[in-house]
């Protein structure tokens, strides 16, 4: 019996984030006991800022680790005998993306938490724990780690959704997420059990090798696994919790959920489909086709009748899941690269849109209704402009990353012969334009209402908005190598490299 050989680089990002969670918890305890520190009074906001900085620091480390892994182009596994976690380029890409998104959400949350008076240090700890779960999810090559990653991601988010304990809507959000989530977990688990039972393996390579294609039990297991993923990426018809949960949760949490969960789940789904079910995945396209079509259709159509911004963005995120699925339907390396690129853009444009709402939350009140934004262009022109930019990106207007993302996805679909799906995609995009445009209508073309919105953004919010705007534009204008310094920013190339090793 030999001691297992461990390669810590594979778990470095997760490790950093997990340690970060512990440090945050400790720091919170230490800080909240003191009245003054270095001669300055210790306030809640200050504590929050410090904790956010700590969290951001660890996330930055995780980002560095994953970026390093990406450039090193090694396929590090935690232990050779039983590789349950792999930090290859795909995992590094998703991990980095999740880290960036979490980092931005941390920065974004400081003022907001104080503003809605839920400024507790546990927030950052939970956020980091969930992030570590996502990272695990992204790299897992075994059903066990997949499951644990999923749960490690979900459980803190259940809590975060209900973080504003005094608000009934927040409670309800958490409860619904929890109920539907654990139900979905059970289904997923049953699927895993059946897969294990029919193949005798829980690792992806083993499943791939032993998958009995004609066995109905195996297929059932596969289907149940797929349902679990479909729930996480909120694909129709497993999406209904999304608007309720997004609406009820505090906006910063909604932001976090909307961007990171989807990225991690799609990353894992991508790996699962290509690695564990590679040869079989082709038979899946019909099913994915239907899911993608339904998701685009229902998400976009339902968003049309929403008056609540969070709810609208929730349906919009459902719709975007549909577009990402189009890339999966294509099933080609190109399609998978398009999926990753879409996720990259999606993170920044959605984060930007939510950040704008975060920056408007005022004295315990979220900025929720479209009407609340009336006349915003005059009171906060820069914010209105940025929000418009993000919405246009979400709508897929050229010049923004949203366009390139959709373009790549549809290109992959057309290339694989799924023209009908591409046409459905563009038609539903037209519908999406309608509801995205309602928001600029309120901001630019309506007289100010009586909604009391915050008049000043904090520097953290500004930073997040600026980063998102720059990235969205950059990805829109130079998705490949740009001139000068931008020559090294080759997002499309990265996406392609990330999926290259899967086949």
């Amino acid at each position, binding site marked *: 019996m030999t001691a297992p050989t461990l390669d810590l680089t594979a778990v470095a990002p997760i490790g950093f984030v997990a340690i970060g969670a512990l440090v945050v918890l400790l720091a919170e305890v230490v800080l909240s006991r003191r009245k003054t520190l270095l001669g300055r009074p210790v306030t809640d906001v200050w504590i929050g800022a410090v904790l956010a900085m700590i969290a951001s620091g660890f996330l930055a480390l995780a980002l560095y680790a994953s970026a390093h892994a990406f450039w090193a182009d090694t396929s590090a596994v935690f232990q050779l005998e039983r590789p349950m976690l792999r930090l290859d380029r795909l995992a590094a890409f998703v991990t980095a993306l999740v880290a960036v998104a979490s980092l931005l959400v941390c920065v974004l949350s400081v003022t907001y938490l104080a503003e809605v008076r839920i400024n507790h240090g546990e927030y950052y700890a939970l956020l980091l724990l969930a992030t570590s779960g996502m990272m695990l999810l992204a790299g897992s090559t075994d059903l066990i780690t997949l499951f644990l990653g999923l749960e490690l991601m979900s459980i803190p988010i259940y809590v975060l959704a209900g973080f504003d304990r005094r608000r009934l809507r927040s409670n309800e959000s958490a409860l619904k997420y929890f109920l539907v989530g654990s139900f979905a977990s059970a289904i997923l688990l049953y699927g895993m059990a059946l897969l294990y039972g029919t193949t005798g393996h829980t690792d992806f390579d083993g499943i791939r090798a032993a998958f009995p294609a004609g066995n109905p039990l195996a297929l059932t297991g596969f289907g149940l696994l797929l349902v679990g993923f479909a729930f996480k990426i909120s694909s129709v018809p497993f999406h209904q919790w999304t608007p309720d949960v997004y609406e009820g949760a505090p906006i910063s949490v909604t932001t976090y959920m909307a961007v990171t969960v989807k990225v991690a789940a799609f990353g894992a789904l991508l790996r699962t489909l290509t690695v564990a079910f590679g040869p079989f995945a082709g038979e899946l396209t019909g099913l994915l086709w239907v899911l993608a079509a339904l998701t685009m259709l229902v998400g976009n159509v339902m968003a049309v009748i929403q008056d609540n911004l969070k709810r609208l963005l929730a349906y919009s995120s459902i719709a975007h899941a549909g577009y990402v699925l189009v890339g999966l339907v294509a099933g080609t390396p190109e399609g998978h690269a398009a999926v990753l690129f879409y996720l990259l853009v999606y993170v920044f444009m959605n984060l930007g849109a939510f950040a704008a709402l975060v920056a408007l939350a005022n004295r315990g009140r979220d900025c929720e209704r479209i009407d609340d934004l009336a006349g915003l262009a005059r009171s906060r022109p820069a914010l209105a402009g940025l929000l418009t930019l993000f919405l246009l990106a979400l709508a897929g207007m050229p010049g923004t990353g949203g366009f390139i993302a959709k*373009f790549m996805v549809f290109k992959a679909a057309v290339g694989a012969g799924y*023209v009908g799906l591409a046409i459905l995609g563009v038609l539903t995009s037209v519908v999406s334009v309608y509801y995205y445009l309602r928001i600029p209508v309120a901001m630019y073309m309506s007289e100010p209402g009586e909604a009391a919105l915050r008049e000043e953004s904090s520097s953290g919010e500004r930073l997040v908005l600026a980063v998102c705007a720059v990235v969205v534009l950059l990805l829109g204008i130079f998705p490949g190598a740009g001139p000068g310094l931008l020559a090294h920013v080759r997002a499309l190339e990265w996406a392609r490299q990330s999926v290259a090793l899967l086949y």
Partner: protein
Amino acid sequence: MIELNTHLLSVVTFLPLATALGLLLVHRLPESAWRGISLASTTVTFLLSVHLFLGFDPAKAGFQFVEYAAWLPSYGIHYFVGVDGISLLLVLLTTFLMPLVLLASWTDITRSVKGFVFFNLFLETGMLGAFVSLNVFQFYLFWEIMLIPMYFIIGIWGGPRRVYAAIKFFLFTMFGSLLMLVAVLVLYLLFFEQYGVLSFDLVPPPSAVGPALLDTAVPLAGEAVWWKTQTWLFLAFALAFGIKVPIVPFHTWLPDAHVEAPTAGSVILAGVLLKMGTYGFVRFALPLFPEASFQFAPLAFGLGLVGILYGALVAMVQSDIKKLVAYSSVAHLGFVMIGMFAFNEEGLEGSVLQMVNHGLSTGALFLLVGMLYERRHTRQIADLGGIARPMPVFAAFFGIVTMSSIGLPALNGFVGEFLILLGTFLVSPGVAVAATFGVVLAAAYMLWMYRRVMFGPVESPENRSLIDLGLREKAILVTILIPIFWIGLYPKTFLRRLDGPVNELVDRLERHGATTARATAAPPLAAFLAPPAGRPEEAGR
């Protein structure tokens, strides 16, 4: 200077956007400063494009002032710009109208001036970019992006139903263009299948002879799966461009957008944006799908004709001047459509020239209506009457522009219409005859409107106290009258530059399309007059 010339086109295209972005960085300037800066920027753009126009060599074939740079080379996406005679004219039209529009909005727009000039400058770059793009991806980018500023211009500074109009405008256009995007992708993949290269370049890049998108052999119906056939690709392109033109069943966004838009918006919309559609046909749809173009020529003729007659008849019963002018645009662009699908030099050159003409005449009409609206705050024909009495100079300008719009010889409209009708007649006399009747109707509705607005007794006191045009307004109108007369009297300046590209296009169409489609496409509509008996076969050819 050499440096300028090599990048002239990019400078022309992006100068407005650069100004706009620069404006974003500046705060707290007086309103007139915004206006002044934007006016200066657009004027410089215009002067540069005049330089471009003068530097253009009509004798040389192909595109000039070409710039080519890698953008996303692995996807065949390049920054690829260049002008031929066709785009040159439209670039000039755009840069010409823009300063006038800004000048015309000098007193009209008082709310958030900075935003207004920002969107206008943004829009200008969008339009110019679309006209000079030789990479289809890049074209699509500009094509879509210009919706945004226009949406805001209509939506923020427009009339009471501005939001409805703006969204309708946006959705309509988006609907068509996204389908075109799919078609572009199919085309791109077809090209890849045939040549093994990924490229969106429409023509081969400079200093490289290789296949370009134009060389793609697009299968005919029955030769490939449905989505790869010319029929469907052409229809997707045609839908996108047709909505923008607009051809008839897709035109209803136009009256709403025109009526609700502020003057500047209406002028640019009518003057340039509609040309995007027709330009798209000339630059992309026809050369890429020659056989399908022939196949659908009867349909295009039919829809163009319906546009001419329908637009005219509906314009005749409008009570709102702007709406009337909007429907007249439908009719005018119907002419452009049929001229284009005549597939001969006369029709095509007439069409392209008519695009410019319509931009000038209808643009000028909207400017004039705007000036009147600014004073009187109504566009209802019934509220007006006898305006010529208090505003004789205005009436005179309005009269000239009206005449230009109804195609009076010596003014610009005639040259285009004549060539279009002639070109169409040579192919399909019946269509040409019916379209010629549209000219009669144009006179009917325009003069009806002119009479009701300008003539008759001055009845309401508001009308009596109207003040005639000021120096600024006169300057705008005189400026726009110069090309109106120029094209009317000496169109050679412009037609000469069209000869090359149009000949090339006609050759291409003849080469690909004549064999398959001429025989089948011609009879249904073109048989109004059969060839004369005893006509020596192909005598003229």
